[in-house]
């Protein structure tokens, strides 16, 4: 399963993990660093080594803000956010694995919350 997951994640992300030179700039610039159990550079390293299972189980998947800071600042063009997204897709594409459900939404609303926040969260957390 893990080998299949790794191949699928690499295909979905289009990321070449072998380009990484382990400088850590992606994690240094990540606005969610403090909230993450596994940081962007660890996603790259762990996918390379095939250590997929801990990533699939990690809440870190839902802490990425899709701000593209790591994509922009990686000196090797590895683009770690695409890997985080691909691992998350691997989880939420499975039946019953949505992280956020439409029924959860009403309780999360307030009068000013822009529609943009709702559609973005659903796109990121649900399939």
């Amino acid at each position: 399963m893990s080998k299949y997951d790794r191949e699928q994640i690499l295909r979905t992300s289009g990321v070449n993990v072998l380009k990484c030179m382990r400088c850590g700039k992606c994690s240094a610039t990540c606005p969610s660093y403090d909230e993450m159990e596994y940081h962007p550079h660890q996603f790259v390293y762990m996918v390379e080594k095939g250590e997929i299972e801990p990533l699939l189980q990690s809440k870190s998947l839902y802490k990425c803000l899709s701000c593209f800071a790591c994509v922009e600042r990686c000196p090797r063009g590895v683009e770690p956010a695409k890997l985080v997204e691909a691992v998350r897709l691997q989880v939420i594409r499975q039946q019953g694995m949505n992280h956020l459900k439409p029924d959860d939404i009403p309780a999360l609303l307030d009068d000013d919350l822009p529609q943009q926040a709702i559609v973005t969260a659903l796109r990121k957390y649900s399939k």
Partner: protein
Amino acid sequence: MNFSYYPGCTLKNKAQDLDRWARLSAEALGIHLEELETWQCCGGAYSMGKDEIASKLASVRALQAAKEKGQDLVTLCSACHNVLKQANDAMANDPDFSLRANNYMALDTPYKGETKVIHYLELLRDVVGFDNLKKAVKNPLKGKKIAAYYGCLLLRPGKVMQMDNPENPRIMEDFIRAIGAEPVLWANRNECCGGYAVLEDKAIAVKKSTAVMDNAADQQAEMLITACPLCLYNLTKNSASETRLPVKYFTELLAEALGVKE
């Protein structure tokens, strides 16, 4: 001059001001924004998965609609702009994605990323010109110290967005100068506000928005401007800063300067 215009879901609801002042100001500058007759929500975020096809089709349909009208497509919401621009780039440069998306579209001529997508700020810089905008200003916002907040979506990824230098931009600062005000230089102008994570983890949004607001206040800004409804929401509702500066859509200040704000 006529342009196709994609307002997006939020500009029809919580961010109606962003839209209204943009349309009025454009008319005052001799530009007519023609809203696409049928458009669907872009989804708010670009799916980075290369094998995500269906979630990008709303963007492709909007891009194709502008192509049929032979017009450039103007966006305003930072998120819509980011999504449409990235989808357009994939249609032009990712043959596998382009083929699969076109299979859904069933067009006589496949769409290959021909439409030029420009943000409203680029319309002001590249079509109107900031010099001409300056001449059109009736009520210059003299002496106002304004912090331009780019956030994450307007500039990144830089090689696709191509609006400005992603690490040292100037388009919003030049806009601020054109309307007669004074831009403040500050570090956090292209850092994230916490974004959509606010929906299930408010603490992230509080932390990130507070850092942004504190930095703007430290640099003596009187207000912040943005093109993003979610940035405006997070900064106004979730920053825990001692000094909570007003946050406005840049189009509101534009309308004020042009004398078209009712």
